[in-house]
């Protein structure tokens, strides 16, 4: 149910922010240029603007290339949600590092490597990439393969396997 709403919203957003992706790209690229160059006179910034324009022009044509069977520029991520999600993800990276370090250092860690399969309906290919990356970053699990909505995940211990299957939007599968 929740997933259906996300799909609808993504569809609506596609119409209102058609050039949002390009704009964000241009701003980020310009920021990278300014940080890496360190010269703030007219000429250097002018070169930067030319380079950014060229790269955005190249990337603009990339969105029509198919990625995993669908166009990657068609559905957009909701920015506010992404921004609330990132701090949580950073925290999860720390937790996951500590968890695996604990497993490594324990004399009898009770390793139980398992393969978990579950389906998770995501609105677009970018959302699937983010979910796959997040699974890899969070404690004890790494994404092995993604086929459509079917995620195959390798879990280090038995408890981590059960955590991931309980994530929202997922249905566990044997």
């Amino acid at each position, binding site marked *: 149910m929740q997933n259906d709403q996300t799909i609808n919203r993504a569809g609506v957003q596609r119409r209102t922010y058609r050039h949002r992706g390009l704009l964000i790209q241009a701003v980020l690229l310009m920021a990278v240029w300014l940080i890496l160059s360190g010269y703030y006179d007219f000429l250097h910034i002018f070169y930067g603007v030319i380079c950014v324009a060229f790269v955005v022009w190249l990337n603009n044509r990339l969105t029509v290339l198919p990625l995993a069977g669908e166009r990657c520029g068609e559905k957009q991520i909701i920015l506010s949600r992404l921004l609330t999600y990132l701090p949580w993800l950073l925290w999860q*990276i720390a937790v996951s590092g500590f968890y695996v370090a604990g497993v490594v250092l324990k004399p009898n860690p009770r390793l139980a490597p398992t393969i978990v399969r579950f389906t998770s309906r995501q609105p677009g290919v970018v959302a699937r990439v983010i979910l796959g990356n997040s699974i890899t970053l969070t404690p004890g699990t790494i994404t092995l393969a993604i086929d459509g909505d079917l995620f195959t995940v390798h879990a280090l211990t038995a408890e981590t396997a059960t955590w991931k299957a309980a994530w929202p939007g997922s249905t566990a599968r044997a």
Partner: protein
Amino acid sequence: MELLATIQEIAAVVLMLGGVGFMLIGSIGINTLPDFYTRCHASGKVDTLGIVLLLMGMMVHQGPNLNSLKLVLVLCFVLVTSPVATHFLMRRAFIAGFKFWSRPEADKEKDDAALAD
């Protein structure tokens, strides 16, 4: 000002030591864990945290200037590429049919007995 600089240095050293420690644990994990997949866990997660802590330590050491902004860029790069690299290693291993290690049955029974107590 003197005190502030001292605190900054101490924080930087603590962060970097933490980072080095996690890198060390990651390396120990790569050597001790039983199969390819579990070793990927050690290199992919523990080392990522180690690098993040090291970079944060360097940022604190630099203070707020252009160099620490560059370090933020490095940090973003590591956070995006590290899980992708780990995932691809695991995926290729999975497709190539690397064997999974599983716990010996005798050990499992021992664990069950320990849990029952």
